[in-house]
C-alpha cells in the first residue's frame, strides 16, 4: 500500500515536472496535454488534472502566466513591425 502511494506520488511529480517544462516553453494547458501525450504517453486527463492542481497551489503564478500569454499576439505584431522597420533602415 505504501509502495502504491509512493509510486503515485512520484508519477504525479513527474507530470508536474513535465508541465513545468512546458510552461518554460510558454505552452498552455491544452498544448501541454497534447505534448505530454505525444512525447511521454501521459493521458491528457492526468495532465489536465495535475495542471489544475498546480494552478490551485500557485494561483498567482498562473494568473501572471495567463496574462503573459495573452500578450503574445501583440508581441508578435510588434516584433514584426520592428523587424520591418529595421530591414528598411540603413545605418
Amino acid at each position: 500500500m505504501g509502495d502504491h502511494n509512493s509510486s503515485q506520488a512520484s508519477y504525479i511529480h513527474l507530470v508536474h515536472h513535465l508541465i513545468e517544462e512546458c510552461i518554460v516553453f510558454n505552452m498552455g494547458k491544452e498544448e501541454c496535454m497534447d505534448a505530454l501525450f505525444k512525447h511521454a504517453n501521459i493521458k491528457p486527463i492526468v495532465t489536465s488534472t495535475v495542471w489544475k492542481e498546480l494552478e490551485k497551489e500557485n494561483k498567482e503564478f498562473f494568473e501572471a502566466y495567463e496574462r503573459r500569454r495573452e500578450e503574445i499576439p501583440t508581441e508578435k505584431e510588434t516584433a514584426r513591425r520592428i523587424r520591418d522597420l529595421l530591414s528598411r533602415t540603413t545605418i
Partner: protein
Amino acid sequence: MLALSPATRNGCDGASEFLDTSCGFTINPEEEDEFPDFADHGDLLDIIDFDDIFGVAGDVLPDLEIDPEILSGDFSDHMNASSTITTTSDKTDSQGETNKSISGKGEEVVSKRDDAAAETVTYDGDSDRKRKYSSSASSKNNRISNNEGKRKVKVDWTPELHRRFVEAVEQLGVDKAVPSRILELMGVHCLTRHNVASHLQKYRSHRKHLLAREAEAANWTRKRHIYGVDTGSNINGRNKNGWLAPAPTLGFPPPPPVHHHHFRPLHVWGHPTVDQSIMPHVWPKHLPPPSTAMPNPPFWVSDSPYWHPMHNGATPYLPTVATRFRGPLVAGIPHALPPHHTVYKPNHGFGGARPPVDLHPSKESVDAAIGDVLTRPWLPLPLGLKPPAVDGVMTELHRHGVSKVPPTASCA
C-alpha cells in the same frame, strides 16, 4: 514635580522647591558623609547639569514637567522603577554618578515609552531629546521583548524572526494562513496578531510580485536559449557550441532583477558586439527595462535568500533552463529548419540576421525537454512551483474514472 532630583538633603533648605523632598526621599543621616555638602556650593539648580541628565540643548524645564507622568506610567509595568529611582537618589555619592544612573533609567524608560507610544507622545519640549532617545531606543527594541502588547510596538522583523514567519506560513499554506495560527506556530511572544497580520499582507503582495516576475523570467530565459545564447563559458562540462549539459544544482530561478543584469536594454540588430545575450527585441509592456528595474525594491528583495532557500545569489538562472534547450537551438550549428518553425534563421550564427521572436516552441525542443525529464527525473524543476496535493490529484482522477496511476497498460 520631578522625581529625578539627583541629590537631596533634608538639610538643604536653601534649595528651591524643585528639590523638595515631596517625593518622600529620606537620606540616611549616617551616610551624610558621602554626600557633598551642597549647601556650601550654593543652589543645587546651578550645580546640577541637566544637560548631563537629559543630554539636551535648550530649555529643559518644560520637559522635566512632563517626564514624571510618563515615567510613572511606564514604571507601573516594569521594574519597580520608582522605588529604584528613589533608592538611587538616596545613594548619591556624587552628582555625576547619580546623573548617570538616572539618565540610564531615564533612557531606558524613554525608550520603552518610545517603543510603546512613539507617535502618541506629544512633546512641547525639545525634539532633539526625543530624537536622541529614539535612536537609542530603536536599538533597544529587541531587548525589550516583554511588552504585554498593550501598546502598538514597532516590531523589528529580523531575518530570524522572518524566517520563522515564513516557515509558519508555508506550513499553513500561504492563502490559508491566518495571523493567529501563524503566531501560534511561531511561538514568539513579543508579537501581536496585528504585527503578524500586517507582515503577512506585505509578504503576500511581495510573493505576487515575485511570482509574476518568475513567470517573466521563465519566458525570457526560454527565449534567450532558443536563440542559442552564448552563455560564455562551459557550463557543466559542455562547451557552448555543443550540447548543453544538465545543471544539477538549482531548482529555483533567481529573482528576475538578477536575471536582468544580463541584458542590455538596447539592442541593435545584427550588431556584432551583441554577443552576451540575444534577446527578443520586443519588450513586453509590463516588463520594465532592466536598468530601471525595481527602483524602490521592497525590503523583501534584499531578503531574497529567505524566499529561495536553495538559491545562491550569484548563480545565474541560465544553467538550469539552458539544459533543456537542445536541437537546432545551439549557436554555430547550421540547421535547415522546417518552415513552420519560427525559431531563427540559421544564417551565420548570431552575428547576422536576428531571429524573429519565438513565441511557439519547436517540436524538437519540446520533445527534447520532455525526453530529458523522462530519462533524468532527478533533475531540478525549472520553475520550482509548489507541488500539487497528491490526494487532491488522485481524488480528481478517480472521479474521472482513472484508477491506475501510473498506468500499467498502454494509454489509449
